[in-house]
């Protein structure tokens, strides 16, 4: 009996082993006649539909798109690239996250080698630059959508404060940050409401308008040398201390609820925030409008399509992504999913020129964001961008919630940042 069970077990193991090798061999065989491309994306891009369209035109290509949650997606990609196996043929990377992949340049195909130079002029210059390495010889990814920022404002709050309400006049009323602070004072006095619900967005808006941010091209921390970030911090602190800014954390339920209640006056946010506002404030149709931001514009969000080195079909993968983010397809993505295009030629398209959104008072929101898109500063963010951002926001939180001394908080934040940077 025992002998029998031993034999059974051994043969079972043997069958397993041979079975495994069989399927592997088969897998190799069938993939040679059809090119399989695995693609990882996050969120809802609507790329599945476009991929179907592409596959119809190119029957020899099979594209499989896998969509995961934002953080999981980037962590999984990081792990796969670090391990050297398991990465897809095409991977989407968000603009802030691309910074942490900069040190992995050797794990990606240089898209300049695959012919990306040809399409460079189709895209916004600043967007293209963010997908390159510091000296512009290596291109990580082709641009997908962008997140140009503008100023959302509550018409009812402005009216209550006795201020003009149409986008043109509001833009004239608040051309720069001094005017923004002055309007904050008026709104606070007349209505008791804050100008913004969250200090982080004000700080981000100012940061985005700085000619340099946290690091120079050599990845050296420059926030102590250059005045811009400290100035953005000081300005935000000033508004916090005067009580002009609310303290609801981004993405909290209160923050969302306040959008509908109209408990604050402005929201400095990117194009994709339109969907967030509509979702959180279903009863506020016509109460939110959008105009240009004080002092210029910035960008928050948007992605790139990259091709990891592991792929067996770099040419085919490149052909597909070049098609996917070409102006014609970006226009489709804009119409169906609201992804804001990174190809300025679309901004003159009739569907862009005649666009209007009833929720935002029937104004042409697409045109507002197209204008901001062309004003965004080209800036180098640096691979440790997130470390610095998190610590500065912590400092601002302490100033807001604990009435901490802003100078001490700034120094403590810089100390924490430096301590983390020396470890990599």
């Amino acid at each position, binding site marked *: 009996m025992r002998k029998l069970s031993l034999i059974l077990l051994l043969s079972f193991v043997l069958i397993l082993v*041979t079975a495994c090798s069989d399927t592997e061999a088969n897998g190799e065989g069938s993939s040679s006649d059809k090119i399989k491309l695995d693609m990882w994306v996050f969120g809802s891009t609507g790329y599945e539909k476009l991929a179907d369209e592409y596959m119809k035109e190119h029957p020899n290509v099979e594209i499989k798109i896998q969509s995961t949650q934002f953080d999981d997606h980037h962590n999984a990609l990081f792990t796969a690239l670090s391990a050297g196996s398991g990465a897809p043929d095409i991977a989407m990377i968000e603009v802030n996250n691309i910074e942490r992949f900069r*040190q992995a340049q*050797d794990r990606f195909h240089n898209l300049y080698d695959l012919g990306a130079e040809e399409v460079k002029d189709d895209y916004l210059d600043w967007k293209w630059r963010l997908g390159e390495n510091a000296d512009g010889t290596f291109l990580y990814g082709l641009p997908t959508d962008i997140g140009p920022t503008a100023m959302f404002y509550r018409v009812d709050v402005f009216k209550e404060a006795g201020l003009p309400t149409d986008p043109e006049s509001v833009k004239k009323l608040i051309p720069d940050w001094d005017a923004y602070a002055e309007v904050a004072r008026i709104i606070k006095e007349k209505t008791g409401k804050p100008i913004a619900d969250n200090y982080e967005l004000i700080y981000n808006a100012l940061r985005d308008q700085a000619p340099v941010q946290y690091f120079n091209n050599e990845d050296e921390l420059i926030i102590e040398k250059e005045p811009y970030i400290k100035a953005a911090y000081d300005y935000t602190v000033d508004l916090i201390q005067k009580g002009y800014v609310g303290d609801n954390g981004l993405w909290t339920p*209160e923050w969302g609820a306040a959008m509908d209640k109209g408990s604050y006056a402005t929201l400095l946010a990117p194009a994709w925030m339109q969907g967030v506002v509509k979702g959180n404030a279903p009863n506020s149709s016509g109460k939110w409008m959008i105009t240009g931001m004080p002092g210029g514009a910035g960008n928050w969000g948007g992605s790139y399509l990259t091709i990891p080195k592991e792929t067996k079909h770099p040419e085919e993968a490149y052909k597909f992504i070049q098609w996917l983010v070409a102006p014609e397809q970006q226009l489709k993505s804009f119409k169906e999913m609201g992804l804001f295009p990174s190809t300025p030629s679309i901004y003159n398209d009739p569907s862009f020129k005649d666009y209007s959104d009833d929720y935002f008072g029937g104004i042409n929101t697409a045109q507002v964001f197209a204008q901001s898109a062309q004003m965004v500063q080209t800036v180098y963010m640096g691979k440790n961008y997130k470390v610095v951002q*998190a610590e500065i926001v*912590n400092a601002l939180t302490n100033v807001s*919630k604990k009435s901490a001394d802003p100078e001490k908080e700034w120094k403590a934040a810089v100390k924490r940042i430096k301590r983390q940077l020396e*470890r*990599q």
Partner: protein
Amino acid sequence: MVPQSKAKALNMKYSIAKRLTEKQKTSIAGYLFISPFFLLFAVFGAFPMIFSFYLAFQKWNGFGEMTFVGFQNFNFIFIDPVFWKSIYNTVIIGLLGTVPQLIAALILAVILNSVLVKMKSFFRVAYFVPNVTSIVAVAIVFTVIFNEHQSGIVNATLGLFGLSPVNWQTSEWGVKIAIATMIFWRWVGYNSIIFLAGLQSIPKELYEAAEMDGAKKWQQFLFITVPMLKPIIIFVVFTATIGSLQIFAEPLIFSGSGFREESITIVLYLWREAFSNNAFGTASATAVSLFLLIIAFSVINVLMSNRLGKTGNIRG
């Protein structure tokens, strides 16, 4: 072709099997049966453990070359006040989360074990449910309950009693109490089920004898139940200690990825180093430090429970 080779291989195996003694065959079969666990453990358990000891002495960003840096990583974290703060936070949250919880679990178990309670199996399941709930879901729900805003459930309740709202996510004690409450809710049922199992193994005669001698209910609890439960109590304290040293998901979701100093725990500190800052060297150094810390706590536990066993053994 395939079946032929298989048959050949089978024959070969068969002849090997013939040559082995009965005892060898038994042990081979035994090893084969336990091998799946050991193979998986070697790959996913033992290797990463050993590798993190190696990594603790390297500088590595996850992609490039590793460079040997000696004890520099340990130096980095030991001079970092945030690291020490994370240990302090872990211990405080652990104490807040486990001490009241174990006492409550014991009381719950005694109530469940008493003859007065009806629908026992319903309560047993009900108590256990929090433990199998997704930890992420729990943390999100508690984030809503312990909201910083005045309209948050807990703050609104405090307001009814005329108390001022608490900054649950950013104040030193608020965040610790909120996280400890999450741990309490999640584990109190699990531990009371374990206590219940222990209670049911205590012979009924002891209680009958005590009753004859005129012992009151609380005396029975203190002088029979607690001493008889000693092994269970030691086990529960052990696992709770180790578990609370590894608190991670609750603070991560509760206070977001800003890694604020009020709520950062050791494992969260480790995670920040590795997966937010790409500093795998210091992350591994933190892991090694945590390993040593757990050993230290376990030794203290063992010593204390040994002592308990000597002095408190009423029956013996």
